[in-house]
């Protein structure tokens, strides 16, 4: 009895000595090591900053935001998830939040499992930690979904722990409690119900003295009640549409997809709970056989039981976790993050390191949604680094002009990841109206986010709609981490609404178009708009880079040569490499005397390379395979190659030639 009391009044006998130092150490150090490992995994492998970048939770510290969330089932968890999600911008804080949640989950889950018969030294209650780590390593799992599971399990543990003890009063408590779980956690109430039912049937302390009929009756009542909750909620919140309320029971990931990760976490907990309950009841029968005896003897031996078996298990799980981590996804997210942060050099560096990424090695049509933003940001990075004219063909331009500026509205709407970077690119170019359109399109796609509101505030300042800018600033003033910027900007606007001192805004304002170019889509008429940008501001180097890039990618050599008149505006003493290549190709077809190079000369080295290219290409005729074979080793990153083959022959890794050429062969 004394031992039973030591383990808690309702915990089952463990059949194992628990008073030893090793046991205490194992109980303490095992989970501690696991949580430390989890923290490091999240911090280093996953990087919570990237989770924040993908989801960028939007939180407002005001009453109406809270009320709006409280009004719907699961809203409180979404509210808290959005708040704590803000801290993921600080890597260690994000990792700590997830680790703390996991620890709470495991401790609560341990109590629940022990009530179902799990022995004291067992470690299966720690298994959800791996699911949490795996789920958040996929970047789109919402913190609120995981937190909802944690809260549901904590509430279940409390429900089991605290009085009343009598069966029917306990059932009565379940009624408001499950309602609370549904209100706070939403769809996790289904997991709550499942675990409750396990306890109803398998937890000796919970319902041992009650007949099976009574248990079945209680289970039926609880099930019907919980499953009726969404129906009741639909009357209040879902416009009287129960179908929608039931659909919302399914855990969601970022941007309204079904969260397989959270479903697996919940399923795993159900399976573990069930197996624990069954194992506890059939333990004696299993251990009666020779194999069972051997296993139990081994498991309860000093080191095997407390260290070897759990350690091996956790090592295996850790390896599975690390191997299942999607590094390709992380690369894409990191690239997007670097572009978003304006870290162009880092972007290009990482891009060069990521040459074997499927986005570059698989057919473009299969990876288009991922490929489109990568190519867009690649050219954006090159332009910011002043390398577009020199290196555009050193990177795959698989999507043609859409690699530079997506010219097709449908393309953008089908590949919506491109919308936000494209909006920012348009703003940088001075295409303010197009940027406005795309910011709203991006908003519809990725939801309201503080960075986007900031963009819109700045855009409206450029457009002279100062009061509209203040609307966005006023929203940001209520958002933690954004308030300081919003207040400072508003104070500056009080002194000068146009923020004339802001060099970036001043520059964009100076690039603003002066001629209206009406069209059915902001995504079309690229060359015309770029040309108009140069008319509005002949110093707009980015617009010039992009216009010339468009000419390069579409083989408009004559237009390119004509626009070389503006080279001096941007301080070029000699013709940039790719312009020179295109000019040379043009001169080869025209009378060189009739072409004005505006005082520039073609370098001898370029002429020699062009001759080499032609010599190699001539014997191949029009055969693409032969051309690949002959040219990809020496001319893969040239305008001539792209012009002839319709694509670059570049593999990114260390600037080596190969990749695509090899595939073509």
């Amino acid at each position: 009895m004394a031992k039973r009391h030591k383990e808690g009044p309702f915990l089952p006998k463990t059949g194992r000595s628990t008073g030893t130092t090793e046991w205490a150490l194992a109980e303490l150090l095992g989970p501690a090591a696991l949580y430390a490992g989890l923290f490091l995994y999240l911090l280093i492998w996953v990087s919570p900053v990237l989770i924040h970048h993908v989801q960028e939770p939007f939180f407002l510290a005001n009453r109406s935001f809270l009320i709006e969330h409280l009004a719907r089932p699961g809203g409180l968890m979404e509210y808290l998830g959005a708040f704590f999600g803000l801290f993921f911008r600080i890597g260690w804080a994000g990792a700590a939040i997830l680790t703390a949640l996991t620890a709470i989950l495991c401790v609560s889950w341990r109590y629940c499992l022990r009530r179902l018969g799990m022995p004291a030294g067992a470690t299966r209650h720690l298994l959800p930690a791996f699911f949490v780590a795996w789920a958040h390593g996929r970047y789109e799992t919402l913190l609120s979904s995981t937190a909802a599971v944690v809260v549901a399990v904590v509430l279940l543990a409390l429900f089991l722990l605290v009085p009343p003890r009598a069966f029917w009063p306990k059932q009565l408590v379940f009624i408001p409690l499950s309602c609370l779980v549904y209100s706070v956690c939403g769809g996790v109430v289904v997991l709550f119900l499942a675990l409750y039912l396990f306890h109803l049937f398998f937890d000796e302390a919970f319902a041992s003295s009650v007949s099976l009929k009574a248990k079945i009756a209680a289970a039926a009542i609880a099930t019907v009640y919980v499953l009726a909750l969404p129906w009741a909620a639909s009357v209040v919140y879902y416009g009287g549409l129960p179908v929608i309320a039931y659909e919302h029971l399914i855990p969601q990931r970022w941007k309204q997809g079904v969260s397989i990760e959270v479903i697996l976490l919940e399923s795993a907990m159900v399976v573990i709970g069930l197996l624990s309950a069954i194992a506890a009841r059939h333990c004696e029968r299993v251990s009666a056989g020779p194999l069972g005896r051997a296993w139990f003897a081994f498991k309860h031996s000093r080191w095997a039981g407390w260290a070897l078996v759990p350690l091996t298990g956790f090592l295996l799980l850790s390896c599975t976790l690390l191997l299942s981590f999607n590094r390709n996804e992380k690369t894409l997210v990191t690239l997007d993050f670097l572009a978003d942060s304006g870290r162009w050099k880092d972007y290009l560096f990482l891009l060069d390191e990521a040459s074997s990424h499927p986005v570059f090695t698989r057919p473009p049509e299969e990876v288009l949604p991922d490929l489109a933003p990568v190519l867009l940001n690649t050219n954006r990075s090159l332009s910011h680094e002043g390398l577009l004219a020199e290196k555009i063909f050193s990177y795959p331009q698989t999507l043609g002009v859409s690699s530079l500026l997506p010219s097709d509205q449908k393309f953008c709407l089908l590949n919506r990841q491109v919308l936000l970077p494209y909006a920012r690119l348009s703003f940088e170019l001075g295409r303010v109206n197009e940027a406005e359109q795309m910011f709203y399109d991006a908003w519809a796609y990725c939801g309201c986010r503080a960075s986007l509101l900031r963009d819109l505030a700045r855009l409206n300042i450029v457009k002279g709609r100062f009061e509209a800018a203040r609307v966005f600033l006023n929203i940001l003033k209520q958002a933690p981490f954004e308030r300081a910027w919003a207040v400072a900007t508003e104070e500056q606007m009080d002194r000068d609404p146009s923020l004339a001192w802001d060099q970036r805004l001043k520059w964009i304002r100076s690039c603003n178009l002066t001629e209206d170019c009406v069209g059915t889509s902001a995504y079309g008429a690229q060359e015309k708009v770029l040309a108009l940008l140069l008319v509005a501001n002949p110093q707009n180097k980015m617009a010039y880079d992009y216009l010339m890039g468009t000419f390069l990618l579409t083989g408009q050599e004559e237009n390119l040569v004509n626009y070389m008149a503006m080279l001096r505006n941007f301080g070029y003493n000699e013709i940039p490499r790719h312009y020179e290549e295109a000019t040379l190709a043009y001169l080869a077809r025209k009378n060189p005397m009739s072409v004005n190079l505006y005082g520039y000369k073609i370098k001898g080295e370029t002429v020699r390379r062009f001759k080499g290219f032609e010599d190699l290409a001539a014997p191949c005729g029009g055969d693409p395979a032969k051309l690949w074979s002959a040219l990809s080793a020496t001319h893969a990153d040239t305008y001539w190659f792209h012009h002839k083959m319709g694509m670059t022959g570049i593999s990114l890794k260390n600037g080596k030639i190969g990749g695509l050429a090899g595939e073509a062969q």
Partner: protein
Amino acid sequence: MNPRAAVVLRGVLTTAAVLVSILGCGHVRVPDGLESANAAGRLPALSPDYAGIVIPPNIAPLDFRVREPGCAYFVRISSSPGNVIELLAADGCFLIPAAKWKTLLDAGKGSALRIEVFVKDLQGAWTSFDAIENTIAEEPIDSHLAYRRMVPWYHTYDEIGIYQRNLESFEEKPILKNSDFSGHAGEVCINCHAFPANQPDRMTIHARFPFVMLLARDGEAAPLDTRTDINKSPFAYTAWHPSGRWAVYSVNKILQVFHTIGETRDVLDFASDLLIYDFEKNTVTAIPEISRPDQLETFPAWSPDGRCLYFCRTAVPAGEPMAHYREVKYDLARIQFDPDAVSWGTVETVLSAADTGRSAGLPRVSPDGRHLLFCLCDYGTFPIFQTNSDLYMLDIETHSLERLACNSDASEAWHSWSANGHWIVFSSKRCDGLFARPYFSYIDASGHASKAFVLPQKDPAYYDAFAETYSAPELTQGAVTVSREALANALRHSEEAANVMVDPEALKSRQKDTGGPAPGYGNQS
């Protein structure tokens, strides 16, 4: 004592006094020193601007914020002797108690509503501002306002909702949200809600993707596919006949286009006609006089007696429409209708674009049939996207035209009348040039408008941080009777939508096709 500390202490004490006043018995003690307050000699700055306006006797409290620097604020609102509300605030935000406000308005119908504002500075001295003199009208406004509310979406959209607001309180409820279709917003666009003669028991709502019209009557809703052999485009702008038996619809081939400077968005109409739909027979008929192949006809509006249909029209522009869109200006026109014989007269021009030099849009006839309220803008048919769009009133009897005093430098459009003809509501972008908000104005017997005021909200700073736009505000004489559930069910069962049939006679007289239902075409509001 350190002067800075003294100021802080004074502020704390004032705040405490205000809190005690508010949390105490509800009675505000008039602060000392008001009698000797310095006169500012000007009106105080209020947000929203509720100075010099005419207000309905049944409007919700006009909560406001005093935008004057100070550490304590006192206001005295009075309508008649003995009817006074006195409020004290530390931050200048005044939330007027609803019951006292109602009593004040009830007692003061037809008289002045006086707002006196006193501001205490950091030195403890009070300043009094010139009293704001508003007028409480005798005539109430319709109790509810229906509108569409959303972020100003472009190609893609997330949440869009049609809401109704009780104007006598701050209660807002969704009539239908696009998320009701599938549980997720962004899949359906809902727009163009319309009621017959401000009656909330019948309404239509259009949806895109799926293209369907929701017809709500007597608490039930049904989906209708309005595309027929004579109109490949679905119904768009609606004018319910006062009898409720018919509605005239425009069918338009419109396209959202974009400018590279100025206002980003625009909507151009490439083809449009007017059709009459018979709710009893479920048939649509093209009327040759108002669906001419050489004309674009749109924006139908019935006179209250149902014997005259007003609309806008222009000649089909020659050449490439995109190249000449700024030259497209619409006339105001009308045609007589005999509801007994269901026969039409001939079209007459009411106001020619050649005379005004501008394009007319969105005509709405006053309930007494005397005035015609409409927009004039530089070109085309989408005034809300044009900064220069203003509201005009035409006296139908005298033909005198007046630019209403409730206009601003920003865009005004989407107007509608109250049932008693003394109030109009319209969308205006005057706050910030981007987000349209609903504004109200009182119309006197001569058709003159008072200064407009924005839809009051409980939080006076509501609009300062609200990035959504209100469009198509429509006044109704009560809450919409059809449930959101019924409308949502109708929307979700759009594949079961009944087809509108073509009146056999219409097929014979049909002279042209208005164009195909290309994706993206539909009614933009």
